[in-house]
């Protein structure tokens, strides 16, 4: 079955997710939430996996840290991959764990030759441990970092060339970054290497409570914004259909509301799929 639009899987929606018969539907989870020895969490994930495709979207391998990925974490991730047999596995162009402390965020770094070499090595270690290709996601940006020696697109392309990894294109992150740092989201997306895109994310964002529209926050707590839908439709028109996640993590509406939003992405993907058929 072709995977079209998916949803973030949340415990509040386990029953509805399990029963939902929508064609092409899939679910994404953060593997860190399922790195337990047993119990109802894993049982639920396995029950849903028995009915739907699942994607593991990691937030904690910390690939952009100047350190190898934690071997224990990587082993637990590999065990979960064997158990769940996910359709997709992805991680971020970011760091979160550093010197034994986990910072629950996707932190930035200067894109230099040094960081590229380190991240490429880390991606290779991850792919070797998991025995599969992973997709690396472009993060949201909030800071002007003067030390950048590479622009992000060139950096991602070179990372993929060195490691064989794919890319996860988060359209909302591109929009948030373009508004915060003042670049053209259209130009960025028009230049993004479509052949490397294994998955797409779209999500809601919110203005910073103090600074308003001049600082957008990638909060995943609201419906996808009209501007992001427009960018997404333009992207799909150019590169064709890719599994697309409605990434909602906070301020959750009921499952029917999420399914309705997911239906819009599904419809966008059905057009190129019908043309290709």
């Amino acid at each position, binding site marked *: 079955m072709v995977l079209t639009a998916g949803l973030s899987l949340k415990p509040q929606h386990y029953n509805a997710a399990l029963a939902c018969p929508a064609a092409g539907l899939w679910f994404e989870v953060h593997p*860190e*939430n399922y*790195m*337990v*020895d*047993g*119990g*109802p*969490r*894993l*049982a639920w994930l396995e029950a849903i996996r028995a009915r739907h495709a699942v994607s593991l979207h990691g*937030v*904690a391998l910390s690939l952009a*840290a*100047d*350190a190898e990925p934690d071997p224990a*974490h990587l082993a637990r991730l590999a065990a979960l991959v064997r158990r769940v047999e996910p359709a997709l596995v992805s991680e971020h162009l970011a*760091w*979160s*764990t*550093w*010197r*034994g*402390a*986990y*910072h*629950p*965020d996707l*932190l*930035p*770094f*200067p894109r*230099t030759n*040094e*960081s590229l070499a*380190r991240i490429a090595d880390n991606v290779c270690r991850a792919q070797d441990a998991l025995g599969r290709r992973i997709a690396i996601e472009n993060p949201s*940006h*909030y*800071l*002007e*970092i*003067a*030390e950048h020696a590479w622009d992000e697109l060139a950096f991602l392309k070179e990372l993929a060339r060195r490691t064989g990894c794919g890319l996860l294109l988060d359209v909302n992150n591109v929009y948030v970054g373009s508004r*915060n740092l003042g670049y053209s989201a259209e130009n960025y997306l028009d230049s993004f290497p479509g052949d490397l895109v294994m998955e797409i994310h779209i999500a809601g964002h919110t203005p*910073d409570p*103090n*600074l308003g529209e*001049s*600082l957008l*926050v990638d909060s995943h707590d609201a419906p996808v914004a009209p501007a992001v839908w427009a960018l997404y439709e333009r992207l799909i028109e150019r590169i064709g259909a890719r599994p697309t996640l409605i990434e909602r993590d906070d301020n959750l509406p009921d499952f029917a509301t999420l399914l309705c939003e997911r239906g819009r992405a599904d419809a966008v993907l059905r057009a190129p799929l019908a043309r290709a058929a």
Partner: protein
Amino acid sequence: MNTPAPAALARFQDAFAHALLEPLAEPASTVTALASQPGFTVYRNTVMKGCIDALQANYPAVARLVGEEWFRAAATIYVREALPAESTLLRYGASFADFLARFVPAAELPYLPGVARLDRLWTESHAAPDEEPLDPAAIARLAPDTLARAILHPHAAARWAWFEEGPIYTIWSCNRAAAVPAPELDWRPEGALLARPRDAVEWIALDAAGCAFLDACAAGGTLDAATRAALDAQGDADLAQLMSTLLTAGAFSRMSFMHETPGRERS
């Protein structure tokens, strides 16, 4: 001894991680200029919110007792002392009960650390390995002399605790279930047992005899030794009722037997 200078990326990450929790970046570090940009606050807020949300999710009875505002203020101080050591945030906050025990603003709430310990035991039980609970019929079939040599192994998801300081179990279970506690608490010691007899964590009150019995089982003692421990803890213990309660609650996973020769065990 000469240590090599850390690489630029490592220096960046040291300074960035420091600035996430401190109001002022280290002067003249690589991130001084970054930390003064408005966008740096997004990272500070996201890291702090992620940790506090995780603590609140892991300690729901504590949060309900003290209210969200108090909880999140206390959690902010805890996070600065103890960032998560791993990314599975379900396990974050292992030292939170100890923190509350020495947290001066919580001194008027002497039951709070105990309630936090029970929230933590719930999490441990919830994420423990899957095992079939011991079938009560397996015990009923044993001859009396065999029974005395039986060793009951606590289930991987079984957690129990005795609280000398007061009715911690009653306070915890009312708040865990979002119920209203009785207006007049009977202020005396209590114990609790949490286990997963089916799919989800369930809990019951457990008396001093029950806690001593399970402690003896966990230490590898025979049923005979566990029974003596239970009676030492509580002279009037009803052992038949206790066994029935523990078996129904899913406290055990399997049984083995001590050989006639002391000190040898076979499964």
